[in-house]
């Protein structure tokens, strides 16, 4: 019964909050408006926007030494999570049956294990550094810790339910997923959608000024 509730009304409610919340936040960002730039543009903004979108995926020269840890652990986590979310067999089945109506070939088991291990290790290392580094500890807020811990819990409960042998374990995982979906639009996890806008805006603004950012 609990599984029916979690995969039924709670899932629909949390998905609705997620879609509505994310849309609202994005509209809020896009309609915020800026004071007009009265200077003569040196060039179009869109090449800079496109360039910066990709160039910020690597640390700028001079910052490599301090950012290597975050770069490596960050990619470990994000790539691992991407493979898990979209190519783990149970997720492919869920998306096909409950969301999209079509599916795709899931990742082989060995790739799933590799992705899961990278994701867990990357997230744990990033959060530990946030807690241990004095500067990062001081500038971290509740949102930073909650996002990391909640994501870890979702992944952990998913790992517990891997055998797909007990409804209770699947229900716990779905419950944590629903909690994450509800929390998502109100948290820094929105960077998953806003980083395009952030990088693009910076690149466009700099390109308009004639600066290669």
């Amino acid at each position, binding site marked *: 019964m609990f599984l029916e509730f979690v995969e039924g009304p709670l899932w629909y409610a949390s998905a609705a909050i997620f879609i509505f919340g994310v849309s609202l936040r994005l509209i809020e960002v896009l309609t915020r408006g800026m004071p007009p730039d009265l200077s003569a543009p040196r060039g179009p903004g869109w090449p800079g926007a496109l360039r910066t979108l990709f160039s910020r995926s690597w640390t700028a020269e001079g910052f490599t030494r301090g950012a290597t840890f975050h770069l490596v652990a960050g990619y470990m986590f994000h790539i691992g999570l991407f493979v898990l979310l979209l190519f783990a067999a149970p997720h492919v089945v869920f998306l096909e049956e409950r969301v999209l109506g079509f599916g795709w070939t899931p990742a082989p088991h060995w790739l799933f294990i590799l992705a899961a*291990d990278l994701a867990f290790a990357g997230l744990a290392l990033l959060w530990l550094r946030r807690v241990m580094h004095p500067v990062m500890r001081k500038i971290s807020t509740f949102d930073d810790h909650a996002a990391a811990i909640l994501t870890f819990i979702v992944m952990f409960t998913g*790992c517990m339910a891997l055998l797909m042998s007990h409804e209770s*374990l699947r229900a716990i995982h779905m419950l944590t997923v629903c909690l994450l979906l509800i929390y998502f639009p109100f948290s820094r996890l929105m960077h998953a959608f806003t980083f395009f806008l952030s990088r693009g805006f910076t690149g466009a603004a700099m390109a308009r000024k004639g600066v290669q950012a």
Partner: protein
Amino acid sequence: MSDIAAPSPRLRYRRAFRISVLLLAFVLIVPLVPYGLAATGVQLTNPGADLWREVRQRVQPYEATTQVKDIDGAALINTWGETWREFRSDRLVPIGGGILLGTLGLIAAFYLIRGRIRIEGGRSGELVPRFSVNQRVVHWFAAGLFVILGLTGLVLLYGRYVLIPLLGPEGFSATAAACKEVHNLFGPIFPFAIVGLMVLFGRGNRFRWLDVKWFIKAGGLFGHRIADSGYYNGGQKTWFWMTVLFGLLISISGLVLDFPLFGQGRELMAAAHVVHAVIAVVFIAASLGHIYIGTLGMEGASESMTRGYVDGNWAKEHHNLWYAEMEKAGMVGVDENALEEVRRHDDIDFRGFGSPLPKGGDTGH
């Protein structure tokens, strides 16, 4: 031919009835014969018993061939499996449980007798940098993995005895399924954590004669005897090398068990399980001492791994030679919020703070 009369319907009926009765008697009575014979003490031998006894007792490795494409395909009976099962249920489980509970009892007794080891001179308020950000991140990463793997492993070994009375069979089934998957998924990460510990804590962990003297004085744990110690004392060095050795052995045996895709036979898997389980029990028991001393057992110890700094008096009492080196280098009484200290945290020199040791080794203490 026409003179031979066909049997009458009544005769046919009687014949069929007799045959049916005989068949029924045969089906009902014949299976009872062995019981009857057993009751009378007559021994009936299983005609296949001799064959299977010979199969079970034959010398290994097998010379039989089979078309089955499996490393154990030619094995009709695996006798070593029973040996392994008996070891697990009759020795590993009770002796391992005794080791773990005994260790907990010893620690409790030590705490009741000795109490918490206080900083005798009280806190000086002066901070001495002890472990860097990288060292602490890797330590807690390994510790977190160890706790997850240890707890899930203990559920797999002792769950049926401890958890079934609490959770019932269905509850334990779900718990065990969850713990098995978590243990198998987090296991492959553990070797990397061990390698990280080796890299970041290896320097300064060579055993010296100083450490022998430290052991003779029991590390100064009893009474007020001061045991000289450098950056790491003898106990810490022992724990470090135990972690490296046990960690690598448990990782290798765990990977053999977790990925049976490379031709591992039953015997290799059983042997890997024995190694894995025995080392795990000893490892967990030893870790209880490490956790105790680092938290409840010794005032001021936990700060080294949470803040990265220790109190000056704590350093003087427990690592006096290292304290002297730090004092000489002007690193006693630092301000952890000072820009210089904060910048040092960003230093990705993997050696971390440590003692200001000359390159190539420690100062020879």
